[in-house]
């Protein structure tokens, strides 16, 4: 018998959340039994959450709501359990309400976990390749273009900190190509405000990397902080990535309405706060001499186009026709 109609939407959400927590706790409890102590130490919080999400996906368990987020399949209800621990070894299983339904699916959970065991121990690059390969067809190219963008940005930061000029130059070139790839794979973004923020962020990033690739490494600590802040404005709380992911469009599960509202709030909050964050970063970039002159930008455009470039005005005409 369905008593859903007799309870308020808030109560309904709370019930859903309890169910999500119970399922997550059970999956993690079973995972803790399956993985060895050494293995449990490398299953950190984000992988714990993904493990729960993929088990739910595998079992088509709709009482755990999930969608495709910043780093793959994401179940925010599971994260609320995982957040209490730093890794699987650290996990103390909270009281699980003894439910018939969960007891019934326990063998299936165990089977799923066995399938995922080796995959969840893979190094990051292999692991995320596996994760992104499971994204919905229409968003796969987005995830596969953001991955090299993030990898090369990380490499660039590393070479910068090591003051390695030669590698910096090479990494800059690769990173610019991965920015181009990312540009080509955000066709799912229709919101003008989000596209404008994407342009603002990427312009600032590309311009500062252009200056940093030939840096004199003066004020290196301030520049390092600037790069970290750029990183945070991309993938941190209220960062650009929040606006690019198809979380709402890919939500699956009984509590989708609740998590869709949660996503809306985050998107609105990000749209409100990111412009001023980028404005501050731009001021910082100017003060650190990380914004190229118009002449430097023109020379780089020429170099990138190998002399074969149409004017923007000509391309604008093609947009209009």
């Amino acid at each position: 018998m369905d008593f859903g109609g007799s309870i308020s939407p808030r109560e309904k959400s709370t019930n859903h959340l309890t169910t999500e927590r119970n399922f997550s706790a059970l999956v993690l409890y079973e995972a803790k039994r399956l993985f060895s102590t050494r293995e449990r130490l490398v299953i950190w919080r984000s992988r714990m959450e993904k493990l729960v999400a993929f088990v739910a996906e595998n079992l088509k368990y709709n009482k755990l709501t999930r969608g495709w987020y910043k780093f793959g399949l994401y179940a925010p209800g599971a994260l609320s359990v995982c957040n209490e621990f730093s890794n699987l070894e650290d996990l103390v299983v909270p009281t699980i309400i003894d439910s018939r339904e969960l007891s019934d699916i326990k063998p299936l959970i165990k089977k799923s976990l066995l399938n995922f065991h080796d995959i969840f121990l893979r190094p990051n690059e292999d692991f995320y390749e596996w994760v992104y390969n499971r994204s919905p067809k229409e968003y796969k190219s987005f995830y596969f273009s953001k991955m090299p963008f993030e990898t090369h940005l990380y490499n660039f930061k590393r070479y910068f900190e090591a003051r390695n000029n030669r590698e910096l130059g090479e990494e800059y070139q690769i990173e610019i190509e991965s920015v181009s790839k990312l540009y080509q794979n955000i066709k799912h973004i229709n919101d003008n405000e989000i596209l404008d923020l994407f342009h603002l962020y990427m312009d600032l990033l590309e311009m500062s990397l252009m200056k940093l690739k030939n840096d004199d490494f003066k004020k290196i600590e301030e520049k390092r902080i600037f790069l970290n802040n750029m990183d945070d404005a991309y993938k941190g709380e209220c960062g650009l990535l929040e606006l690019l992911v198809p979380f709402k469009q890919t939500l699956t599960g009984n509590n989708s309405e609740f998590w869709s509202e949660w996503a809306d709030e985050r998107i609105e909050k990000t749209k409100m706060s990111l412009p001023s964050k980028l404005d501050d970063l731009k001021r910082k970039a100017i003060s650190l001499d990380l914004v190229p002159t118009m002449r430097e930008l023109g020379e780089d455009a020429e170099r990138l186009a190998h002399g074969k470039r149409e004017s923007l005005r000509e391309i604008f005409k093609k947009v209009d026709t």
Partner: protein
Amino acid sequence: MDFFFDTGVFLGLDDKDKHHQSVNGFLDKHPKDANRYFSAKAAKEELDSKRREFTRRGWSKAERRRVFQIINAFIWQYIKNFTNYEQESKKHPSFDPLYRDFLPIVEKDHFDAAILANAFLWSCEECGLLSPTVVTTDDGHFYKPKEKFFKIANKHLNRAIILDIQCVWDDF
């Protein structure tokens, strides 16, 4: 002097643009240190909307992004203010009549009509302007029909108009 740029002037910052020499010559002759540059929010919006379209179509190659970055660097450093008399919360009462009457003259290009309406209102509202002049690369929409614009502006603004409209390649 005080100059009000149409979108085409920004596009002329691109060294592959057919008006690049004229825009450069203009900026050399009227440098920022001795003059002030203004434009309309509608001009920025026109650039932004085209850029969004580039991205949507997958046309945002690295070298094209650099040109947008050049334009934005110029805007950041040199544009004193983008007027926005059509802004919802504080729309100027004469904006809509000007815009509406300019629109057929500029072949229904709503950006051009909005830029021109902003320019006329700027010339009346901004204090202490010195020879306010619209600078354009679009002689068809902006320069040739300018007498028509002045007639319309006189009717709606009911005051002496001190604005001038010139092409970027003209000697002024």
